[in-house]
């Protein structure tokens, strides 16, 4: 149960963090130069945007939750099971932003769900001494 909650936090924070970051970066504008100084200035400017700052905060939570999940479950289990983020992004884009989802994308979502279900039906941890 605890592992499942960790995995849900991983998916939710990764998806929400990336969406906020993407939304914020569109407000900040594209990076003009790739020189280290310009990059640092752009990073500071981007962090002043509340959406970017919120996105970064959520991605830090994602990183920590992912670590906890990997301490309790196999990497070969966590990786496919947390691919639900791809589905969440497509559904949020469709439901909230009114984006058109092409048939190939719906098929892709169904295929990901099928793969996740297959992996989720295997034991979460196969390494001795790890939580199940």
């Amino acid at each position, binding site marked *: 149960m605890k592992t499942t909650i960790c995995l849900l936090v991983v998916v939710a924070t990764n998806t929400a963090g990336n969406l906020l970051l993407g939304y914020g970066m569109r407000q900040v504008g594209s990076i003009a130069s790739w020189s280290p100084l310009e990059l640092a200035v752009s990073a500071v400017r981007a962090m002043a945007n509340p959406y970017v700052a919120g996105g970064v905060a959520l991605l830090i939570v994602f990183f920590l939750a992912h670590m*906890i999940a*990997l*301490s309790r479950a*196999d990497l070969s289990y966590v990786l496919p099971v947390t691919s639900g983020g791809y589905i969440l992004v497509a559904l949020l884009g469709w439901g909230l932003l009114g984006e058109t989802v092409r048939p190939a994308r719906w098929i*892709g979502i169904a295929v*990901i769900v099928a*793969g996740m279900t297959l*992996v989720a039906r*295997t034991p979460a941890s196969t*390494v001795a001494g790890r939580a199940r």
Partner: protein
Amino acid sequence: MRFFLLALVVGGAVVGDLLKTLAIRQHAAVEDFRPGALGRRLGLAFRTRRLWLSLAAYALSFFAFLGLLSVAEVSFAVPATAASYAIETALAKWILGETVSRQRWAGAGVVAAGVALISV
């Protein structure tokens, strides 16, 4: 150029995940979720070189991905990175000693195919 960048994207993500897993597994699985205990447990992982190397690998993967997007279409970049599912599953078996059953292999392959399909 784009295949070199793709190799950096996938390689960085794979190495990052493996090093992060090795870092957190140097100690027992996280069982105590009270904030203090959780902070101490995660702090142990942050004191390992592996975790900082994993962050460097993720950073390399991220910047290579930005570079890849500047020379290739998203419809090439995202499906191609789905290769990391197969590579990580194989390395989880060989390096981390995980038991990867046929069902798990099939599931990882199906998810990779779905990720490729969703972004073409």
